[in-house]
């Protein structure tokens, strides 16, 4: 169960980071003019790429690209939907809401529904992982200090999410 959450964590972080990479490359040249373009599919992102923790290094680079960008003041919001990614836990799809180039909301459009265990993992893990992804991205942090965690506590820590995203 714990391992499953870990894997899911890196999957979602990968999804979000890869999506933000694809958005930010064109967005960095014409931020503002692409605002309010409505729903745009994150096409071209192969599901194997999106689900793979093996691309975390690439995703880490993407995040750093994203970190450089700051939202233009008063930028309009837009919604971007990723392609469906086949994960170990079934098909998943992520929808991002952006203000300028900053992710303000992450929504998982599809969840696994092929087993009680998967449901349980989703129900308990996804809101927390979304929060963590947003917290880490918005704060642009390298590491986290907090009350001493045990090795079990580490698995659900923000530091663990950072270690995986940057690995």
């Amino acid at each position, binding site marked *: 169960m714990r391992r499953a959450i870990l894997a899911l964590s890196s999957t979602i972080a990968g999804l979000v980071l890869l999506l933000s990479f694809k958005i930010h490359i064109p967005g960095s040249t014409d931020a503002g003019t692409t605002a309010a373009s409505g729903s745009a599919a994150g096409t071209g992102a192969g599901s194997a790429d999106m689900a793979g923790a093996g691309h975390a290094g690439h995703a*880490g680079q993407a995040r750093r690209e994203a970190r450089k960008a700051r939202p233009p003041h008063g930028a309009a919001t837009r919604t971007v939907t990723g392609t469906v990614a086949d994960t170990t836990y079934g098909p998943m799809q992520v929808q991002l809401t952006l203000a300028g180039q900053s992710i303000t909301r992450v929504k998982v459009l599809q969840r696994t529904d092929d087993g009680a265990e998967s449901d349980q993992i989703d129900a308990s893990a996804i809101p927390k992982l979304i929060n963590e992804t947003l917290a880490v991205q918005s704060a642009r942090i390298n590491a986290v*200090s907090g009350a001493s965690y045990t090795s079990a506590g*580490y698995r659900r820590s923000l530091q663990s999410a950072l270690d995986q995203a*940057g690995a």
Partner: protein
Amino acid sequence: MIAQPVTAAERLRHAEPVMGTVVSFDIPAVAASVLPRVLRWLHWVDATFSPYREDSDVSRFGRGQLPLADCAPELAEVLGECAVMRDITGGYFTTTPGGVFDPSGLVKGWSIERAGRLLAAAGVTSYCVNGGGDLQCAGEPAPGQPWRIGIASPLQPGRVATVVTGRDFAVATSGSAERGAHIVNPHTGRLAADLASVTITGPRLTTADAYATAAFAIGDVAMGWAERVPGYEAFAVRPDGRTWQTSGFPDDSR
């Protein structure tokens, strides 16, 4: 000398389970060959200083079975650090928190600080070593950028309460969020519950860690005390969510 990273992408992250927690490293990828030596150090500390291992030097010394002279010389060094911290915190930092000899409150921070020094001695000038929530950082994660360390919110899991920035500095946090109330005020014998968490920043993790433990035991009035401690700054979250910090606390608004 090891070349400094040109881009942030050339970083290596490693998470090592040791000392009952996980120690996370963020170092230049080119420094990978140094890592095994640093990991060996941490596991040696674990074996030598663990109060949970019957045969560790600390356990045998604590039971009076092994004289200090026969222990690893690092134990005398740790005891010296403990004595200094006990004195400058007015006894709020102690090696006998529950009446039993246990220097663990200092050992983790001290061993992480030393891990950083081992990296530095091998020519690594940019690193962040995070020992279960207490960190020693050096240099910059990328050229021109300071380290940005999130302080975990003790009240909202997964959120950061504030962000501190710096180059060569340590960050230590004491709180009850992870393991429940476990820090005793040695002067009253009661569990410290005034604060949800206290964070101390300063040059050395050994000192910052011990100060964080002491400040948590002191409670809300630690702000006045922390303001007078030279070289170290404090940030605290109260159980009601309100926060306070000393005037020089290096949060990212500075």
